[in-house]
């Protein structure tokens, strides 16, 4: 639906894999930047705040200690109001290669997922990121995917809904 950045995107659109047998979500995406740079955008809080989180909400990063054994806590804020908060720990930070985190949405405090992000050097200054989320069971996985609709890209969905309504 959104086409404003396709001139630089080429053929590297995000791929999602939700295995019907396993409580996992795999998100694959290529970037026009070397692993060192992509990795930096993941671990420096000032950079993370610019892209993480839903489009229409501001991300307030309270803690982002991206080192092995470190922790993080951030909230999505819209119109001055906190709409969701998340926290977890950095299980492993292996520079330019691998980032392993736990992830909990405070709205579902008993739920915790394990997020492994792999940074693959594609050469020519490009990087493939493979994000694997593992949750406790299939119901939990589906709830996470469904919750994306609530805290997700509001404007995009509104446009989509308008299009569908025109049907």
């Amino acid at each position, binding site marked *: 639906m959104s086409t404003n*950045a396709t001139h630089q995107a080429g053929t590297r659109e995000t*791929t999602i894999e939700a295995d019907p047998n396993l409580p996992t979500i795999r998100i694959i995406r290529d970037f026009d*930047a070397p692993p060192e740079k992509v990795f930096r955008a993941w671990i420096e809080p000032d950079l993370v705040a610019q892209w993480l989180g839903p*489009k229409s909400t501001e991300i307030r990063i309270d803690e982002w200690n991206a080192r092995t054994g470190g922790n993080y806590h951030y909230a999505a804020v819209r119109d001055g109001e906190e709409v969701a908060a998340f926290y977890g720990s950095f299980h492993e930070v292996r520079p330019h290669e691998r980032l392993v985190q736990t992830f909990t949405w405070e709205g579902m405090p008993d739920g915790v997922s394990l997020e492994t992000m792999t940074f693959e050097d594609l050469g020519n200054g490009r990087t493939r990121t493979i994000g694997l989320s593992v949750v406790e069971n299939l119901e939990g996985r*589906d*709830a996470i995917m469904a919750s994306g609709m609530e805290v997700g890209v509001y404007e995009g969905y509104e446009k989509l809904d308008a299009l569908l309504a025109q049907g």
Partner: protein
Amino acid sequence: MSEDQLSRVFAALADPTRRDIVARLAIRDATVSQLAAPYNVSIQAVSKHLKVLEDAGLVSRGHDAQRRPRHLEAEVFDMMTAWIERYRRQAEERYRRLDAVLAAMDDGEPFSREPTNNQGAAS
């Protein structure tokens, strides 16, 4: 499709026997006893699986009162595909903002906390 129904669809398809039933109904409608034949389980067990598939909206019953052949509601799969596409698009939007962040890093400009929704301007 509501989130509840989507969860039911995912849960229904999480079971290998139910996926096998769906695969066979994709070829042709079948009665409960026809569906049960290849499995080493009771008719009741297959009926239970069918109930889960029916509750998820994946399978319906035919009008033949005697045989009640089960029918696959294939369009539910299309709706599920569309729903996953929404989730994918959300991730893609996030990563396009990351594209813009990476492009700004290329330029050697100081990092700002300004919203970078306008990806096009950063390239």
